């Protein structure tokens, strides 16, 4: 039962990658301007020198030949070299993935701890806290990440000088310090979304007939909550948290731009603008992979939490 499910997921992954690579190739080919321009940095350079370089990068070949060249290398694990830096794409991406991964991981921890924590508190203890949370989250969920980035920089980096506003830092301690503001900026609206889903799911489960009956019959409240309320509420919470985190990978581009982090998202925009094709392909590969894997994880968690669901059924 699990095998066909995983197989189907794998096929969709392959199809996505193939379609994506072709779309990227066509788009870069149709886009105006020469990829080689990135090398000149806006200075005037002799046409002869440019012709030599275009030949070196095989940019003078027809479209399908270029695509086939790339594809046949890519399936063997060779992602090619960046035109702008003559570096292996895999190396260029590996380094930047680290920053994006750290950022998304940091933000995910914040989302899980703060988002679910706040949601549970509000869900289980109606009252003033609950009210405050709803007010705060409905505004926070609508704050674009660039705005939270700017406001956080303004307060914590410029006015108070507590945290650095720029770059990724070296070493673990510095890295955490440098990524704190970006991670908060990235996580803020997701924390709000997750907190609301958590609160709502717990309310819904707590309001169910069997729970109310159990409590009225004098079954200890704590036991009822852990065994029935939290267990059942965990399903929508996990799903929405998972999907939210998967979407962070793309949103991180905004935060990376705002905080001058050399991450994947920011690199994607720069290299697609300068038509550094192999790099765009490589980043797309990583983004698609990460997204599909995260969704797979969510599905598996879903199946574990809810024994009624088997994977094959959910996948359809």
């Amino acid at each position, binding site marked *: 039962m699990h095998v066909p499910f995983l197989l189907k997921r794998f096929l*969709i*992954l392959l*199809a*996505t990658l193939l*379609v*994506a690579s072709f*779309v*990227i190739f066509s*788009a*870069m080919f*149709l*886009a105006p301007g020469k990829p080689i321009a990135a090398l000149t940095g806006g200075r005037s350079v002799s046409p002869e020198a440019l012709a030599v370089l275009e030949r070196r990068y095989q940019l003078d070949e027809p479209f399908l030949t270029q695509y086939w060249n790339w594809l046949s290398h890519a399936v063997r694990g060779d992602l090619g070299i960046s035109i702008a830096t003559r570096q292996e794409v895999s190396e260029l991406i590996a380094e930047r993935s680290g920053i994006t991964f750290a950022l998304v991981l940091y933000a995910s921890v914040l989302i899980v701890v703060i988002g679910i924590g706040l949601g549970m508190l509000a869900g289980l203890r109606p009252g003033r806290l609950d009210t405050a949370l709803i007010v705060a989250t*409905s*505004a926070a*969920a*609508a704050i*674009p*990440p*660039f*705005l939270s980035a*700017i*406001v956080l*920089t*303004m307060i914590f980096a*410029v006015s108070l000088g507590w945290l650095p506003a720029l770059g990724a830092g070296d070493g673990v301690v510095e890295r955490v310090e440098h990524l704190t503001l970006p991670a908060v900026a990235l996580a803020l609206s*997701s924390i709000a*979304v*997750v907190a*609301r*889903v958590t609160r*709502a799911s717990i*309310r*819904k489960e707590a309001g169910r007939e069997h729970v109310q009956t159990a409590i009225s019959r004098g079954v200890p409240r704590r036991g009822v909550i852990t065994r029935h309320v939290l267990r059942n509420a965990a399903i*929508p919470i996990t*799903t*929405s948290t998972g*999907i*939210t985190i*998967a*979407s962070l*990978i*793309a*949103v991180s*581009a*905004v935060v990376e*731009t705002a905080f001058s982090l050399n991450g994947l*998202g920011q690199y*994607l*925009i720069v290299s*697609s*603008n300068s*038509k550094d094709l192999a790099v*765009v392909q490589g*980043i*797309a590969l990583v*983004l*698609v992979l990460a*997204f*599909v894997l995260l*969704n797979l994880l969510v599905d598996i968690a879903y199946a574990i939490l809810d024994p009624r669901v088997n994977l094959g059924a959910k996948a359809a």
Partner: protein
Amino acid sequence: MTAVITAEASAGKLTRARSSRLGIPGVVAVVVLVLAVAAAIAGPYLAPYDPSAGSPSGAWLGPSSGHLLGQDVQGRDVASRLLAGARSSMLGPLIVVVLSLVMGSVLALLAAWRRGVVDSIISSTMDILFAFPGILLAALAAAVLDAGLWPAVIALSVAYTPYVARLLRGVFLRERELPYVAAAEIQGFSAITICLRHLIPNVLPVMVAQGTLLFGYAVLDIAILSYLGLGIQPPSPDWGVMVSENQSGVLQSYPLPVLSAGCCVVVVVVAMNILGERLLGAKDNER
């Protein structure tokens, strides 16, 4: 960047208001929406100053009686730019919503009606599109068409379509199973007639509610793309553009232009979310 929608939509459903009326928040949201639409239509004419005329000597000037919200990095009137910017900031998302609703519902209807192979093909295609990063689509569209409102709108419409299609497919499937559809089929009505006369009108409230929620996200996403340089280009007055243009003001303790543009985005998005949730709640209550 759009995956939040489904999560938020389900959250909306769960926290739905018990009343079928809009309630005070809903009314406020409607008022905000009406004001935003009015600004989008009449903003450029209401603006007290030419939104693109600035003077270097007016850069970063604070609020005064002539300039209620002060002046921006190039000495342009912030209030005038906010008013004029409402147009692209609202029109873009509107087109995104319409396009993605049309594409999504056509695909969903096809899948739900035909089922079988057609459904599998459409569902698989949506799965592929679903995993396609929205930011990549936007970057590619901007590279091919040269960044502007249209590439951003096209990219977002394509990115939103699988979400709409997935959601509506379920709704259409449920509707398709209802006895009246079979009855109509037996009476010899064509599929198109049944869809247009019955299925779509019945599902319309869900579509409107979803569209409202989508609109909020589209406002956010268009602003994000403009901020990243993949959407509307300066010096066009647009809320996202205004944030990126005036960013350096924050460091010079003149955050007003950035904050006022940012607040416009937040207010519209919150209003749309409230409305969407109320509509979803009202819809569910009817059943």
